[in-house]
């Protein structure tokens, strides 16, 4: 801030005539006189008047308050024990890594779902082999996830008629006792007969 020259100060107070001032002191006097005129031109408002103006302002609507809250910056502090954050990280990683939990296959109009279930306690493997696998093993492998001897599997197959058998431990051909519909296989055994329907959407 610039200090007012004492001589200029005395001229402003009326103690001295302006003629005693130097050129630079006169410039400062002129600037101060202009500033004083500008201030005197402003409307006079008291502190009380300004407070009352704020008080009388209509309240902000809830929507505007929410919008302002959403758009303004806020400091958010979450306090979590490290053990819980570690557990959350493990769960997220498991969800990302575990296979077969996705949305599943997209079925065409001429495709349906077939579910196979067989009770084979002590079996090491159970395959479903049939016309939909060209009678080759390995395409439909059942699983015993519960280790209770019940082997299960779900597959997408073309709509229509299919024949199949279970192959237990890679060598024993077994007719599905739950199929309910059978046809002679021409080799002295019975194939289960399966009709796959289109999925109703």
């Amino acid at each position, binding site marked *: 801030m610039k200090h007012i020259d004492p001589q200029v100060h005395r001229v402003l107070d009326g103690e001295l005539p302006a003629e005693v001032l130097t050129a630079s002191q006169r410039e400062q006097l002129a600037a101060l006189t202009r500033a004083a005129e500008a201030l005197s031109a402003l409307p006079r408002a008291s502190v009380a008047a300004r407070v009352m103006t704020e008080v009388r302002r209509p309240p902000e609507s809830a929507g505007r308050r929410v919008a302002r809250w959403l758009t303004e910056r806020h400091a958010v502090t979450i306090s979590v024990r490290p053990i819980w954050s570690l557990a959350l990280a493990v769960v997220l990683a498991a969800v990302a890594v575990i296979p077969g939990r996705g949305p*599943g296959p997209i079925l065409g109009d001429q495709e349906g779902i077939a579910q196979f279930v067989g009770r084979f306690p002590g079996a090491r493997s159970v395959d479903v082999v049939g016309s939909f696998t*060209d009678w080759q093993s390995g*395409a439909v492998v059942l699983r015993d996830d519960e280790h209770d001897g019940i082997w299960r599997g779900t597959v*997408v197959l073309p709509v229509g008629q299919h024949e199949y058998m279970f192959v237990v431990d890679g060598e024993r051909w077994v007719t599905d006792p739950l199929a309910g519909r*059978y046809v002679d*296989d021409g*080799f002295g055994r019975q*194939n289960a007969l399966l009709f796959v329907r289109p999925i*109703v959407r």
Partner: protein
Amino acid sequence: MNLRCGILLVLTAAAPLAAQGPRQRLAGHVPPATLAVLDSIVQDAAGAGLPTEPLIQKALEGGAKGEAPARIVSAVAASAAQLRSARALLTSAGESPPSDPREVSAVAAALSRGVSPQLVGSLSAALPGEPTGPALHAVADLVGHGFAEDSSVELMVEGARLGLRGLRFLDVAAAAVQELQRGRSHSAALASVRVLLPHLPAPPRAAPAAVSRARRVQPSHERP
């Protein structure tokens, strides 16, 4: 340019699969000594306009089950004869040749389940222009559970008259069998199902969780 390259690649990859004849599909899966005979049975069937896929499947099945060469040839020949009978029955029932291969296969399978040939005519008349295979299998289901064949056919004809089509006939048989398992007599079971026609319960749908785990099965000859 990229699209053209993609199409070309797909066609190049698909060409060998499309060109796979019966001999190529059977080679390595059946005893070598049977290859020529099986190929000739399949070629004869193709020449006669019969579906050949059931014959190839029967040969593959025999090979997978470790059957003797003579038994495999015999089973495939029997299948060819059955397809011929099925096609002849469909033609005599008024279906104009060439018959739908799936329909011929379904009728042949129903005949091998013991359905009498006369039924093909009865059900074809009740279902003009529609596949009769599912209705025939439904009759076979009922006969397999001790229902009289003529009563079973009447039930299917009634279902057809009320608008049932396709695999819904299997639901008719399933409903009758369920009534039987509840302790009703055969005639009472048929009567109670007849009352429900054509609004029979459909089989339960697969649970979404099971569907999400389902894997698409590709027969070995369609695998790249």
